[in-house]
């Protein structure tokens, strides 16, 4: 008898959820809202600023071509290689800047920690899929573009349960 009651209780707790809001995020119609504009790092204090670790953004006016990001990536993903750019900057005599292969990148963000010149940050852009491998290699010019991301939904918690938007 106690078994029957137990089964009824178990079924009942499942049936109750017919009236509860659906938790599923309807991606890509809905997209999650993130904290801040991506992971950033302050080399003066040595502490980062919270944010999503998505694809990088490179500020050409700050990059000196010091290769510290590339050195930091050695032994982790080896995704960063330094390439020639056809730009003339006073602080970048060698005219080299990082090029990132997102087929290899693990998004650990240690290259951002390594940059002492506020030149390399990460952004909220996480939709990087492509049909070819070569399209995953982002040149310095591509990395300089600020991504346009729509973020609208957050987890909402009320009496009827948790849901997205």
């Amino acid at each position: 008898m106690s078994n029957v009651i137990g089964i009824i209780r178990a079924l009942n707790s499942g049936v109750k959820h017919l009236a509860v809001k659906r938790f599923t995020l309807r991606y890509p119609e809905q997209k999650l809202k993130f904290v801040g504009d991506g992971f950033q790092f302050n080399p003066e204090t040595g502490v980062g600023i919270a944010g999503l670790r998505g694809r990088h953004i490179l500020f050409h006016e700050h990059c000196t071509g010091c290769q510290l990001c590339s050195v930091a990536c050695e032994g982790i993903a080896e995704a960063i290689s330094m390439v020639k750019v056809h730009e003339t900057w006073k602080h970048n005599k060698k005219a080299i800047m990082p090029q990132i292969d997102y087929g290899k990148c693990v998004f650990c963000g240690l290259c951002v920690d390594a940059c002492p010149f506020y030149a390399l940050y990460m952004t909220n852009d996480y939709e990087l899929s492509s049909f070819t491998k070569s399209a995953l290699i982002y040149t310095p010019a591509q990395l300089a573009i600020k991504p346009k991301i729509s973020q609208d939904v957050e987890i909402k918690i009320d009496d009827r349960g948790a849901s997205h938007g």
Partner: protein
Amino acid sequence: MTTQLPPGMHLETVDDKIMTLNVGPQHPGSGHMRLIIKVDGDYIVSCDPDPGYVHRGEEKMAEYRNYIQNIPHLERPVIHDSSNILYPYCLGVEELLGIEVPERAKYIRVIAAELNRCIYILYWLAIYGIFLGHSTMFMWPAGDRELFIDLLEAMSGARVTHAYLVPGGVRNDLPSNFEERCLRQVEYFEKRLKEYEAIFYQNPLLKARTEGSGILSRTDAIRLGTTGSVLRASGVDFDVRKKEPYDVYENLDFQTIVMKEGDSYARSRVPYLEMFESCRIIRDALKKMPKSGSVRTKLKPNPKGGNDEVYRRVESGRGAIGYYIVSNNRPEPYRVKISVGSFRNLICMPYLLKGEKLGNMPAVYWGLNYWPVEADR
């Protein structure tokens, strides 16, 4: 005519009644591993676990990378519990390099570790549910896990492989409205956890399948060197967080969950009850945490450790994880040895499965909290 076999090789004697089953090596639920099971009808005669299919050489890789570069790859063995597997490494390296950790960072690390423990246990519970054919119990924990993944994503910036803990503190400070959001989601999660009780843990079907199967006695649990929830389900009160408190665990209010039965049911229930304790720890840590201050001690580039060795361990979702790190005046460690709970719990699998029904094998196997990737390292 009998052919002479070379020395050291022998053919197995075949018994008509005994059948050999290979469970795996293709992914019997977690990572690649194989159980060589011999069955007599429906009953298991012997079981021989065969790990080693996902060996990644993490320990050797750590000898060629400096103390910071080791962080992303050392969390790869258990990506669901990445803060806890990095925790002893950070504690050990801090001791080797003589780094002081700011007080606020210690609390943040504890919160990250407890959130990650919940993420791991929920994932484990989801697979446990589907192993026993309870598909609702797969959907619910997998959905509720998102609450904690979202919190850790706000904290660290990544959903699964956080690379958040570093020697000297944490990578970045908490976002602005984190405390309020964390408290709200933890409170909601505790309410949800209570619903698991009726649908899963008090379910007579689950009880019939798991109660009294795969009993591990208290003396056997100690003798076989098990750890974590397996040890606590057999009635041994051992938790590294209580016995050898690290960071700020001694200031926080929580209990060790101990059950006496030692069967599959107790092994599935101990991690579930631990999630309530994790919620208590998170709430307590948020209350006692200093509201401002630094969260990371600045390191020199390429820090070098002296001629020294250190062993530190923490409690993870699967038991004690220990790191033995040796340094020899170089930026890279000389040797990193990782001692994991999964491998130690695997040892008792042949003892538990002997005489069990084959149908109970998934419950015993997954109840041991065994993660092949972590065991092979």
